């Protein structure tokens, strides 16, 4: 080790008052400087020149992945269903879908017409709107499921009274599945109605009837 020289400078005598003031200022300055963190110095040598030749610098990386929620590929509830003479036969049909949600989610449904509707005016004793029911069945990665049924009339946007799943879905509105559901099969939306008693009425008038259901999905942490 090389000898080290230390240079020491003899301080000049300062009048007491002046020295006191200088010391005070120095102290204040020291307080304004945050203490430097303790440093662990590591020396790494080239191979052949010493040891060690490598050192690891631990750098912790903290990260999180936000929840995702959507319909699985090819698992969106969509399609068409037609039933001729539905007033005589009634109907029941399931639209299958699959969620891809890493956390709790909600599904909402909105009916455009509030039932199957045809053109024309509903005269006394006759009807242009045929009621039917909408049911939701949701499955998850666990044994948890969610089920509810509402009349299509209660699924009209804004005015519908279905508290379970009138859409559109958001973090607080819609049928909630409390567990993650990722690409699970078994979820479905069912539309159904018994045969209509046309004799008792109101009598559904002749014509083509239609309705559209809009199904929406939202994460619900």
């Amino acid at each position, binding site marked *: 080790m090389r000898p080290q020289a230390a240079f020491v400078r003899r301080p000049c005598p300062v009048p007491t008052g002046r020295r006191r003031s200088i010391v005070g200022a120095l102290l204040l300055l020291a307080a304004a400087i945050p203490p430097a*963190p303790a*440093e*662990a*110095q*590591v*020396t*790494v*040598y*080239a191979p052949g*020149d*010493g040891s060690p030749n490598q050192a690891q*610098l*631990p*750098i*912790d*990386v903290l*990260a*999180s*992945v*936000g*929840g995702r*929620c*959507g*319909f699985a590929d090819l698992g*969106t*509830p*969509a399609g*068409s*269903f037609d*039933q*001729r003479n539905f007033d005589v036969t009634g109907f029941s049909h399931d*639209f299958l879908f699959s969620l891809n949600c890493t*956390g709790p989610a909600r599904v909402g449904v909105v009916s455009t017409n509030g039932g199957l509707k*045809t053109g*024309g005016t509903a005269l*006394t*004793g*006759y009807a242009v709107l*045929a009621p039917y029911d909408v049911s939701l069945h949701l499955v998850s990665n666990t044994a948890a499921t969610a089920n509810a049924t509402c009349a299509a009339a209660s699924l009209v946007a804004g005015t519908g009274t279905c508290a379970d799943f009138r859409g*559109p*879905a958001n973090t607080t509105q819609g049928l909630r599945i409390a567990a993650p559901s990722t690409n699970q099969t078994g979820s479905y939306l069912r*539309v159904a109605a018994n045969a209509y008693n*046309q004799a*008792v009425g109101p*009598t559904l*008038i*002749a014509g*083509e*009837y*239609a*309705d*559209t*259901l*809009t*199904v*929406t*999905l*939202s*994460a619900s*942490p």
Partner: protein
Amino acid sequence: MNRIILTALAAASAFAIATPAAAQSVTGVINITGNVDSKCMVVSAGNPTGPATFGGTVALGNLAQADGTMATDLATRFNAAGNNTQLQYKIVCTSAKTNVSVDADPIVAATAVAQAGYANRIDYKANVAVTLVGGAGAPVQSDSTDGAATATTYNDRLAATNPNIIVTASNFRTANLTDILLADSYTGKITIVVSPAA
């Protein structure tokens, strides 16, 4: 001597990466369609017989009065309130327009007439009153001497009231007022057809 001085802070160096929860909302659309055919349905059928879907039977009793000529109160007997359940019906149709046809057949006996002054046939006029959503429609009438049915198309739906089809009869007569009715059983028929119109 080659050396590298590495200084690592004693406090762990760390950086965080975080992505907010993706509250993604996606949409599916389902279309449901169906139809209701044009058709008529019987709600109150009366007391039909045979293949008829509605109708009834009116028993007029003895058609002749004491002198053998036709009784003069057959219309009163036919239209008596006691026959309402036989003559009043409710029919509903899904179509916007309604066809109604009526064909009255004479009341006749099986025994053929051999002599003048006698009769085995009574004619009459059948009247079918139709109530529509917009009010009473013009009645459809058929006389038993007509060769064919009388048909009417109403540009309205049948009212959803009960009854909306009421049958009455009038002008019961023999060919001659003095004709003596043959002793026998007599039968007649009024055929009413209600059908949807385009």
